[in-house]
């Protein structure tokens, strides 16, 4: 190990990470690293990237460097002049070839390598030894002033570099490199870098992973969930989505140029818009790759539970999986470690299995109750409603109980958590129950005869369906029908209602494609509903109504109003039509019972949506800094509308594990002033008045107030200041 490399131990305590001897702890490694890029704290100086990495302009170069592993530090590439000295003027542009380390260096490397590299499996095990982490310079250059979302996406972008650093045999390229992430053209890499002659080539070569999709997705989640948007989103960008009607523009402001329609319509279609115009993208719905619940079906790598609190790390027990390289596996693990959505899904899942927690106990009890069929339900609908009701309950418990560590609010911008939690809950509730629910649905519909009736109706309609449904547009041929059937079969297998909806939309898209093949024109419901009915009859899947019921009852209610909801409604309507006897008068297609059940369903789910919204509106989460001696910890604490300072402090005491809560006080810091809040204050009033420019400090009364400023040491940025910007 070169002498100039110094090691600092990262310790993990109570699910926070901190550098040894430092008073500042972080909810995750990403935050720790990004903090130390800005502030040195206990380090001799803030982290910066080695010049070779900072100067790299293409993915290839970074990859080549990362393949060198630890050896990079002692390689000639790692320029180590005095920190302030200007870089050598004639540093040649780096070519990937330069970075490739000759094979014979293997032994040299192993002799010199003193650094303990750790497998990513151990990354989060809390044994007190951190792992070496490379950060893509693009991250550093672009992250300034951008929101958490972008930051996260950039982490995703750089994970590959990290992967190879951690684990690949450092001197030989992997035998089977992982397939690169899907690439999008990058707008522009940082200007002024690299050789101009080669830049254009590199630019075109340097593609970004498909993050735009996810970014847009989460952008829209705010709307989907009705959760207030955080500041992570640029308000101007958001405003642009809402066009002022042209008439109004002309009336009100003649200077404002007419807004152009969204740049590229195809691009807009990328958005996963299940709700309110955020409907997915029939245009982009061809692959199943984004369907988490299906991925998981094939997922066979067993993973260690993430460390929570004091639970001891379990060694990983990877099963044999011949078709995936070790590297690929590793990248999956790392990816899931760094992607907050996946991390939350894992945290929630682990929590749900841990009976020692309130949440875990609640979930496990419910699963047992359901599996043993101890609950008697009057109908299939009642059973599904019970499940949905439980998901709602579990979600609010999860948000309130504070058992999720680190809290979700520290991992994701607010507007995303609803959706991410929803998916995480599907995973720990619906996934284990899927088979059971399917069986029971089947039993219900066998017993009430509706399954048989649908079988008969579909059978009878096989002939003459085109005429019966008045189809006047081209319909899918046998190949197309097979494709739709495949989509619907896959849909049956998915446990997540969201994934099911996406597959349903894919099936609808196949129908539209066939419809357009004749005239090439766009079709509305006049043409679609007949064609859909025809196709559904041809697919001949009598248990489709059960799938529809599953989605209608289990989808988060706000997801029922968008494009997904529309096509789900269309399938429902179509099935009603198919089921009605061909000779029946059109007016009688919808029986009184059907009408009644739609009415009930609509009312119930509408009320549910309103209730969920009301709950969301009545609470918010605040960052609270807890300081004790030289330690500061930041946690999120839920503030309910009804909370007084006193009741809020009780939660703080619980959250930070304080037993003699009487001697503690809650301090409000705003514009440099710090004052103790009296117990009977209404905290929500105070915080809403101050909007965002404040921080809350929970600490022992009488403690020297200046201590909280201890965080500001030579050159370090003020942590509480930083929090102010993130609380809003």
């Amino acid at each position, binding site marked *: 190990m070169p002498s100039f490399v110094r090691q600092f131990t990262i310790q993990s305590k109570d699910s926070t990470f901190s550098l040894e001897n430092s008073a500042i702890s972080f909810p995750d490694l990403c935050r720790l690293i990004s903090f130390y890029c800005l502030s040195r704290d206990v380090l001799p100086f803030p982290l910066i990237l080695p010049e070779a990495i900072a100067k790299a302009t293409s993915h290839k170069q970074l990859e080549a460097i990362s393949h060198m592993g630890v050896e990079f530090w002692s390689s000639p590439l790692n320029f180590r002049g005095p920190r302030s000295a200007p870089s050598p003027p004639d540093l040649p542009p780096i070519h990937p070839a330069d970075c490739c380390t000759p094979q014979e260096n293997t032994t040299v490397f192993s002799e010199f390598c003193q650094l303990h590299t750790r497998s990513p499996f151990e990354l989060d095990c809390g044994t007190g030894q951190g792992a070496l982490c490379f950060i893509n310079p693009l991250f550093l250059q672009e992250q300034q002033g951008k929101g958490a979302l972008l930051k996260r996406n950039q982490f995703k972008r750089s994970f590959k570099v990290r992967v190879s650093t951690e684990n690949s045999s450092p001197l030989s390229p992997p035998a089977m490199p992982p397939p690169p992430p899907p690439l999008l053209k990058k707008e522009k890499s940082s200007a002024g870098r690299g050789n101009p002659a080669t830049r254009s080539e590199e630019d075109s070569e340097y593609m970004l992973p498909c993050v735009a999709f996810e970014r847009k997705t989460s952008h829209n989640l705010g709307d989907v969930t009705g959760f207030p948007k955080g500041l992570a989103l640029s308000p101007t960008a958001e405003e642009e989505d809402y066009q002022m009607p042209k008439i109004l523009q002309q009336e009100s402001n003649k200077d404002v140029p007419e807004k152009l329609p969204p740049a590229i319509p195809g691009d807009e279609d990328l958005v996963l818009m299940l709700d309110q115009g955020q409907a997915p993208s029939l245009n982009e719905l061809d692959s199943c790759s984004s369907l988490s619940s299906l991925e998981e079906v094939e997922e066979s790598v067993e993973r260690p539970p993430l460390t929570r609190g004091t639970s001891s790390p379990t060694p990983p027990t990877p099963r044999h999986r011949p078709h995936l390289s070790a590297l690929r596996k590793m990248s999956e693990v790392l990816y899931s470690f760094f992607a907050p959505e996946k991390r939350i899904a894992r945290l929630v899942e682990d929590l749900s299995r841990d009976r020692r927690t309130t949440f875990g106990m609640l979930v496990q009890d419910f699963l047992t109750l359901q599996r043993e069929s101890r609950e008697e339900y009057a109908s299939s609908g009642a059973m599904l409603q019970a499940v949905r009701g439980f998901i709602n309950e579990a979600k609010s418990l999860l948000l309130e109980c504070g058992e999720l560590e680190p809290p979700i609010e520290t991992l994701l911008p607010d507007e995303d958590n609803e959706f991410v939690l929803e998916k995480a809950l599907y995973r720990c509730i619906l996934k284990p129950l899927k088979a059971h629910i399917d069986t029971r649905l089947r039993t219900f519909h066998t017993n009430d005869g509706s399954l048989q009736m649908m079988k008969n109706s579909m059978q009878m309609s096989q002939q003459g369906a085109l005429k019966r449904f008045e189809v006047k547009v081209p319909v899918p041929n046998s190949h197309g029908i097979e494709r739709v059937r495949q989509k619907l079969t896959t849909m049956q297998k998915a446990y997540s209602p969201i994934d099911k909806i996406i597959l349903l939309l894919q099936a609808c898209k196949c129908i539209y494609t066939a419809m357009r093949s004749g005239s090439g024109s766009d079709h509305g419901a006049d043409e679609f509903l007949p064609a859909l009915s025809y196709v559904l009859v041809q697919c001949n899947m009598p248990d489709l109504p059960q799938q529809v019921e599953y989605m209608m009852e289990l989808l988060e209610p706000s997801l029922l109003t968008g494009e997904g909801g529309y096509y789900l409604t269309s399938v429902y309507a179509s099935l*009603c039509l198919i*089921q009605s006897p061909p000779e029946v008068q059109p007016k009688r297609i919808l029986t009184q019972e059907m009408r009644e059940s739609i009415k009930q369903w609509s009312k119930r789910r509408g*009320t549910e949506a309103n209730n969920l919204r009301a709950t969301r509106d009545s609470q918010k989460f605040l960052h609270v800094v807890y300081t004790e001696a030289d330690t500061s910890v930041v946690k999120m604490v839920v503030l309910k509308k009804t909370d007084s300072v006193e009741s809020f402090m009780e939660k703080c005491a619980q959250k930070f594990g304080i037993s003699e809560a009487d001697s503690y006080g809650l301090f409000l810091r705003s514009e440099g002033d710090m004052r103790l809040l009296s117990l009977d204050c209404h905290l929500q009033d105070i915080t809403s008045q101050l909007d965002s420019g404040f921080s809350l400090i929970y600490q022992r009364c009488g403690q020297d107030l200046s201590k909280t400023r201890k965080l500001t040491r030579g050159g370090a940025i003020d942590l509480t200041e930083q929090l102010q910007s993130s609380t809003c």
Partner: protein
Amino acid sequence: MASGGAGGGSKSYSFKVVLLGEGCVGKTSLVLRYCENKFNDKHITTLQASFLTKKLNIGGKRVNLAIWDTAGQERFHALGPIYYRDSNGAILVYDITDEDSFQKVKNWVKELRKMLGNEICLCIVGNKIDLDKERHVAIQEAEGYAESVGAKHYHTSAKLNKGIEELFLDLCKRMIETAQADERAKGNGSNQAGTARRGVQIVDDEPQNAAAAGGGCCSSG
């Protein structure tokens, strides 16, 4: 759905608008014209026109419109309630050259008023005014009828892109007003405007239906 920003004063509304009318009256062209600003005889960027959305900024209020198309053929008429449940607005389209399509609109109005009450904003739209020479529905009659049922009447041409912006803008304003009134009535002032859902009030307009069901000609599913 109202997702008003945490500290901001601007509100956002989400409205569901259902599109009703006989086949061939030009429902699809109308809504395509509005959402894509093009008539459907040339460029095609989307595959479908059954479900469309539009985001608007009306006087600082953000409006998310979701437009649900329905199949207009007689055979599909009965499926209406499945589509129009929870709608904030309905656009009932007829073809000014087709007297029959205007009668169909009247049927829809009756049904909607019965099922959804007065809270749904109704727009009656005479489309194809580019074919005014072949007009079969008198302007006075149509406007008079609209007024009598508390609906607004509009004349449009999807082909010439006439009257469509006005129609939707006006509808949005009315839906905002209704939502605000709703909100005030609730008196909670919380941002739940526009999503105040109304359950479908299904009133049985056919008393003989029960007898028919008893007679076994209706499925019980």
